[in-house]
């Protein structure tokens, strides 16, 4: 019925899983992609060091995410696996020693394959955490996670407005989006405690009216969702 995507990267999960279960350790050098323009590189060095697996990720918005606390989050989650200096041409690297795993290897495939998710989550955790601690300001946070699409986080007192900017390759897609998002907005009538949703097309949403960092106003659609305390805790 519904196609619900996983949060982690299936390819990365299976590579790590196989590395731990396979007796043979063949030379590894794979490059593959994930959504949003993300690139992964998994490799082992030759010779004696086939137990060392390097997992690197490159993503255009990594520098923005690092400024918003991603690096501290990664340190907490991956500990000694996180490399201080990422591999050349990549933004973040993890090094896993198959012979000396830092924790139960059964957990590692899921943990490693959630790398993108953990990096992406950092600004959300920060903003939502600040709101719960009542230390959030009015600063709007931009995450330009795709070439022409961005996410904006706007704290407002006890709630947070999350705005997604969406690029449509055809005008017809925008019409379908309007129909679907109208239903999202109408969900409040039959479900309690659900975020308020609004959609604008080719015009800046009210929440971002004077925001200088707002991109692609003349071409994109904007979905605003207001999440509040019961969602943030």
């Amino acid at each position: 019925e519904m196609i619900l995507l996983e949060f982690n990267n299936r390819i990365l999960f299976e590579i790590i899983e196989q590395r731990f279960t396979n007796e043979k350790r063949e030379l590894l050098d794979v490059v593959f992609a994930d959504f949003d323009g993300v690139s992964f590189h998994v490799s082992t060095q030759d010779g004696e060091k086939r137990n060392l697996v390097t997992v690197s990720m490159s993503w255009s918005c990594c520098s923005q995410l690092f400024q918003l606390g991603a690096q501290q989050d990664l340190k907490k989650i991956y500990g000694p696996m996180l490399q201080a200096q990422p591999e050349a041409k990549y933004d973040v690297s993890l090094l896993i020693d198959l012979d000396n795993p830092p924790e139960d290897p059964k957990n590692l495939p899921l943990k490693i394959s959630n790398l993108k998710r953990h990096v992406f989550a950092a600004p959300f955790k920060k903003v939502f955490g600040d709101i719960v601690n009542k230390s959030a300001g009015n600063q709007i946070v931009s995450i330009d996670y795709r070439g022409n699409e961005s996410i904006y986080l706007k704290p407002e007192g006890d709630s947070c407005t999350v705005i997604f900017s969406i690029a449509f390759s055809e005008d017809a897609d925008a019409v379908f989006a309007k129909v679907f998002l109208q239903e999202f907005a109408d969900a409040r009538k039959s479900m309690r405690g659900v975020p308020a949703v609004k959609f604008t097309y080719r015009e800046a949403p009210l929440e971002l009216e004077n925001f200088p960092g707002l991109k692609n106003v003349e071409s994109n659609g904007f979905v605003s969702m207001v999440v509040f305390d019961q969602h943030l805790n």
Partner: protein
Amino acid sequence: NTLKPYLDCIRTTLTAALCLRNFPSQIVERHNKPEVEVRGSRELLLQPIVVSRNENERCLIEPAINSVRVSIRIKQADEIEEILTHKFSRFLMQRAEQFVILRRKPVSGYDLSFLITHKHLEDLWKHKLVDFVIQFMEDIDREINGMKISVNTRARIVAHEFMKQFA
């Protein structure tokens, strides 16, 4: 309700217009073309008629000596119906050859066009052909409406699935 008078009017007009006979081209030797498309000789073209139900729904009937062009403008109340109509009629028109009487491109200002020639009337019963066109017009409105309801239903399901994570 204006639907029955509208369709009845189209039915009688079509029945009158579909009196076709073979008429080889007067201009090119040994050629036989639908004169309503060629539009070369004025005496071979009859008076075109527009039957309107309202400003958004109408039917253009262009008769000629050996062929008739019937163009329909389908009711489209909003953007989503426009997209659905456009995609649906495009789907049919790409298969015009199998459809036999359908024109590959609609006449400008209309959504769908039929081209009926004397040859078709030699193979098909005229009264059945007229029945078909009328039935087609009723069915297409119903189809578009059904598709629109499916879009809304699907949207509601998706919204529910997504939002229930928050509730």
